[in-house]
């Protein structure tokens, strides 16, 4: 594992420090920050790191642009949601749901993988966009199963809810209850999933993926069955996204099209990967952090800014908290302007390899 980390970690010391800070910050959130919002942001941050990294596996490592990645996230979440909606919430049911979700995801990914081989990249990107939008409509039409637009609200195993008290006393000022258990279940699962992806990327398989992205034609000519590699990468990336969806469903205790399937989520993930740096995997951590913090706290900051600016007519209108999306749009643009290779790509190349000669 250490070797895999050594091979893939960005070389730049500052980037490494930032990554470490983020990981520690998330793990110790209950002690470092007050309030439910911080805990929620940290949990969702870890889930999105997994989702964005799994998307990077597809986009950054195989060069496949897909807008249907949130679909797999959604399948994972809905599998859990539907299971808990129909059966008493328990870990057995959860396991069955995970297996079922993975099954469906892999099937869908396999079919989409086959399509992706038949059409040009850019066609594929737009087809997936259409498929993603059809999926949301499908979810709304199958409302008996999915709860439609309104989504599903369900109970989760009691040990993961605030009602479950593990210790009676607070530990350094933090209540140790089911919610905290849930938080750590999410955070540590995310870390494990991320590390598995790191290993895959550092493996010979990961190396082939990079080759496919660079020159598919050449990779074939030296004997790689590009079809098999692409499909495997698509399946892997779908599987990780599905598992991220499972964590999301557990954490939110609600699953609906807006929170796990919408195009907005897809675009957020795309932006996370791009801001962080495509093909770096670690970029997902930085990208997800930037975006989650922006979503959770940008409005508040803008409100403060507006108070300062006060009466300046147009400017204060632009600074109004209601216009936070405007600034998100500018973030898109800025990321392409200033970090076309992403933060990680910009500030550091890959780690230096052992000298060959």
């Amino acid at each position, binding site marked *: 594992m250490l070797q895999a980390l050594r091979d893939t970690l960005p070389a730049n010391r500052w980037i490494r420090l930032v990554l470490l800070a983020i990981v520690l910050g998330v793990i110790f959130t209950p002690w470092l920050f007050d309030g439910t919002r911080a805990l929620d942001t940290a949990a969702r941050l870890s889930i999105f790191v997994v989702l964005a990294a799994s998307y990077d596996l597809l986009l950054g490592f195989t060069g496949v642009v897909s807008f249907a990645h949130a679909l797999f996230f959604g399948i994972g979440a809905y599998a859990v949601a539907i299971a808990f909606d129909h059966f008493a919430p328990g870990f057995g049911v959860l396991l069955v749901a995970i297996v079922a979700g993975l099954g469906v995801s892999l099937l869908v990914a396999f079919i989409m993988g086959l399509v992706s081989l038949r059409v040009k990249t850019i066609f594929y990107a737009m087809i997936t966009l259409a498929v993603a939008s059809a999926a949301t409509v499908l979810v709304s039409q199958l409302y008996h199963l999915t709860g439609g637009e309104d989504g599903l609200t369900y109970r989760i195993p009691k040990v993961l809810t605030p009602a479950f008290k593990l210790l009676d006393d607070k530990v350094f000022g933090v209540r140790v209850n089911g919610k905290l258990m849930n938080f750590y279940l999410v955070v540590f699962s995310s870390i494990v999933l991320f590390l598995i992806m790191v290993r895959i990327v550092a493996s010979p398989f990961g*190396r082939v993926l990079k080759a496919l992205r*660079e020159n598919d034609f050449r990779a074939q000519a030296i004997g790689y069955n590009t079809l098999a590699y692409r499909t495997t990468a698509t399946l892997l990336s779908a599987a990780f996204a599905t598992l991220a969806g499972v964590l999301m469903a557990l954490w939110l205790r609600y699953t609906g099209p807006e929170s796990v399937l919408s195009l907005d989520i897809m675009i957020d993930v795309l932006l996370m990967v791009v801001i962080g740096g495509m093909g770096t995997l670690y970029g997902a951590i930085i990208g997800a952090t930037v975006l989650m913090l922006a979503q959770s706290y940008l409005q508040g900051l803008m409100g403060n800014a507006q108070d300062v600016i006060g009466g300046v007519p147009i400017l204060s209108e632009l600074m109004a908290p209601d216009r936070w999306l405007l600034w998100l749009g500018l973030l898109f643009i800025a990321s392409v302007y200033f970090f076309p290779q992403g933060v990680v790509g910009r500030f550091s190349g890959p780690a230096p390899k052992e*000298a060959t000669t």
Partner: protein
Amino acid sequence: MTTHTTTPVLETRELSVQFGGHVAVNRVSCRFDSGTLTAIVGPNGAGKTTYFNLISGQLPATEGEVRLRGRVLGGRSAAHRARAGLGRAFQLTQLFPRLSVADNLRLVVQAKLGLGFRFWQPASHLIAVDREVEALLERVDLAGRAEVPASQLSHGGQRRLEVGMMLALDPEVMMFDEPTAGMSLDEAPVVLNLIRSIKEAGEKTILLVEHKMDVIRSLADRIIVLNNGTLLADGEPAEVMSLPSVRQAYLGESGEGAT
């Protein structure tokens, strides 16, 4: 020297391909034996590269078949053929431009050893691969530039890497498509000497497309001439080159051409 009684390493039978109304390769039948170097010559657009494409599977043939050690390759993919022992260096350089020179070679060696589907072991633990890559870098004179992205090599360097990637695959049949095109007087010999040493080892079947007559004369055991997709002539270099039809089609009126 060619005895047609034994199975040749590589054989094409009535191999043809059409694009629209244009027949680019027209019923070409040919056998290639182990340890020989066959030069393929012909005017531009004669179908040399296309012939290679048909053999190595980059293009599907409209008719005819390719046999490797007697086995028909049929609709096998390029990847399959590469694994079966058909190696190829391209006329237009095909590299992994943003990967380092060493990584370009590592990928090939890894492919040869069939290590691609390992998900768990760190790639940097493949010591055997690295050792082989070091040797290769020496052979193509790129040892000093191992960690440079391939795209930053000069034209000559990229051509050498292109050849090096085929060597790394160590295939039974090696096909070179104008390996020295655009190389300067001092660089071309590096590649040519490399080809010569492979030939002298006597284990491989080499196909070489070249326009430079001096190169052909010094390397080839046999020449086949393609013109308009058809096999025009096939034989020993001196003999073929003296045929009037070949001189007219290929070398130009003055015979020797401006090589």
